[in-house]
């Protein structure tokens, strides 16, 4: 944080879940943690607004959830291990979540992984995936 010594060089496309994020994201992660319980998942589906209010989501967090924006949730301090439980409510797996974050259809996201399986580097496979796509962001 502000008065701490400098942090190491950021990693492109990567958001470390550190103290800043953990402090910012507490309410959102707290809500997602509650989704380990099926009754809570149903309560969210029954009344999303009311359920989010119960956990005091910040306006930024509430908007990211409403928009189903994974990158927005991460920017608002969400941690992927907890967010995965929210994604599960919508029937989304980690490849769907990858597709949402990279902004490409899930088939192209999966093809990018298969390309790495054939020995392509991430950089090459990723460049191929992004061909003809709008840049995410």
């Amino acid at each position: 944080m502000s008065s701490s010594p400098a942090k190491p060089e950021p990693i492109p496309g990567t958001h470390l879940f550190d103290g800043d994020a953990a402090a910012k994201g507490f309410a959102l992660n707290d809500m997602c943690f509650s989704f380990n319980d099926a009754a809570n998942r149903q309560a969210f589906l029954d009344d999303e607004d009311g359920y989010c209010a119960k956990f005091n989501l910040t306006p930024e967090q509430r908007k990211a959830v409403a928009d189903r924006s994974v990158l927005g949730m991460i920017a608002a301090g969400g941690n992927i291990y907890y967010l995965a439980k929210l994604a599960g409510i919508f029937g989304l797996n980690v490849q769907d979540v990858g597709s949402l974050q990279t902004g490409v259809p899930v088939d192209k996201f999966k093809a990018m992984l298969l390309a790495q399986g054939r020995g392509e580097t991430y950089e090459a496979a990723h460049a191929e995936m992004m061909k003809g796509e709008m840049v995410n962001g």
Partner: protein
Amino acid sequence: MAEIVGAYFTSHVPAIGGAIHRGLQQDPYWKPFFDGFPPVQEWLAKVKPDVAIVFYNDHGLNFFLDKMPTFAVGAAAQYDNADEGWGLPLFKSFEGHLPLSWHIIESLVEDEFDITTCQKMLIDHALSIPFELAYPNADKWPTKLVPIAINTVQHPLPSAKRVLALGQAVNKAIQSWQGDERIVVIGTGGLSHQLDGERAGFINQDYDKFCMDNLSVDPAALTKDSVHEIVRLSGTQGVEILNWIGARGAMGEGVAAEIHRNYHIPISNTAAATMVLEPA
């Protein structure tokens, strides 16, 4: 005296549980991964462990951000799985090994590891999937369990050097244990993968190969990089290699022999790897 029969390492992607559930072992997508397990199963049938010490990470089932331990050691008579949020069928429970758990806890605290002790502990797919893969037809798990959870969720994470030292301290605890158990050490998670952020889908075969090549002969090589650098090389969830490093440490400081290796990309978003080492 107790004997460490060896160590088994594997990725623990949740989708593996689904594939097992749906019987997809021979499906073309899954076959190259599942084909890595008969040698593990045969090895376990030969060395017959009766206790497993498992280094893994919790995925938001047992620990929340209100109390997030760097290292947690279980000391429960039984460990249950629970709904992780997807409503999947529950994995089988594990029987604990209370006296060995407390012995390890005593020894670790004596050696200045500031662990959290868990007399109740829910275990998640990261612990159960390696057993589902290793003992596919078991009605109950053939080993008792001592679980050791490492924080790979909330930074700061412990350094790879510290985790290797933790594993070595567990080895020291086993050396002073006077039971005659046959102990298998298990490390779960990894290898390179990243679920979150614009770099989601990142895999690094070169780094994975570096880790697998050094795990047996020079595990300290895996501790040269900072956690931040490991994330750069291996992905945000690739840091689960810490669990492998801890388990490798628990084999002791000597060189180990590589008995088996399988590596396949992709399983879900992950470079999936499986290894078996024996004390050399």
